[in-house]
């Protein structure tokens, strides 16, 4: 199954969830999503999503200087982001449960 289409729908939620765990900078968020199993996630998609969520007022951002490499722009959730995470998370759970229950009879046939 082509997961890129699925990813499109849940990337906001996945990014919010990752940042709820711990603040992170762009590439760090990409890495944590991939480590969590979303191996197909694109760098540009994550970067664009971070910018859009920031623009929408769901994220805070701050720059952390680094002597080893470039300065890093960290993102974290604010209250609006946490509220969005809770809402979307609940939507996702009921959606996933519904799809799961649709899949059950198929599993029995197979």
């Amino acid at each position, binding site marked *: 199954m082509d997961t890129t289409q699925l990813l499109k729908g849940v990337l906001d939620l996945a990014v919010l969830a990752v940042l709820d765990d711990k603040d992170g900078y762009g*590439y760090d968020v990409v890495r944590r999503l991939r480590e969590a199993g979303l191996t197909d996630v694109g760098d540009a998609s994550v970067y664009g999503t971070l910018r859009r969520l920031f623009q929408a007022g769901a994220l805070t951002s701050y720059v952390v200087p680094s002597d080893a490499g470039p300065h890093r722009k960290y993102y974290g959730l604010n209250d609006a982001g946490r509220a969005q995470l809770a809402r979307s998370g609940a939507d996702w759970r009921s959606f996933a449960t519904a799809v799961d229950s649709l899949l059950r009879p198929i599993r029995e046939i197979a």
Partner: protein
Amino acid sequence: MTTPPPPAPTATVPDAEAYAARVRAALADLPPAAREDLLADLGDHLAEVAGEDPGRPLADLLGPPEDYAAELRSSAGLAPAGGAAAAARGPGGLRGHRWVTATREFLPELVPGWWVLRAALLAGLLTAVLGGGVLLWLLLTAVLVPLSVTFGRWVRADRGRRPLGIIADVVAVLVAVGVLGLASGGSGSSPVVQEGVVVPGSGRYGLEGVTNLFPYSPDGRPLTDVLLYDQDGNPVELRPDWDAGGNPITRVPRYDTGGRVVGNAYPQEQTVDVDSAGGDGTTVRRVPPPVVRPPALQPR
């Protein structure tokens, strides 16, 4: 905003800068504010990515910058490239965009043709309703074409009237589908045997209230695409129109390898149109299979 930090002196930075420049070029059609917001930290971000795997060019890690830009656009919720501005700027590799632009340019020329077509469609519907022939259809078309064109020009004159135009077009398309349905359905009214045994949820065959059938194998597994026939070899076709709550049921048709509809394959895949809470519009819901526990049959 804070002043941009000076780029760290790593070997990968020139690569990141070149890559970012090409991404920026691919986004040249965006409004400057949106573009700058999107690209503000891209250089740093790309340098970060490059730093993860020093020595490998970014295009290896991330793909072509143009693809990266397209992904960035869609994830940031911005319009896709392909507007006239992008095509005009086109630094190569934009032949596809030029083609898109050409298509966009000639589409408006087709619109008056659509005005004529929708008049003919409406005339077709009226003719079918009135039970008339080709002559009535031509006559009605002749009357309706000027009305449709006048309406089209009136809508076009003012942006605020666009919704009215869209409604009219949607109605016309629905009418077109209906007219096609009438045409194909009326072309050859077939004998009863080919129609199959129609059990319209009446008391016939004791199937009142039955909207679907769910066959199971002797060991209790649900079966799919079971073809059912009656004692005379007629396909048994349940044609439920309404569920117990009075909501309309739509069957998802199955086809044979020749593309003909097979009406007696069970269980039928169905959706039901449920009135939404506000009573305003409907929700389509897939009809789930019942939860059953069939008995284990003794072997014959």
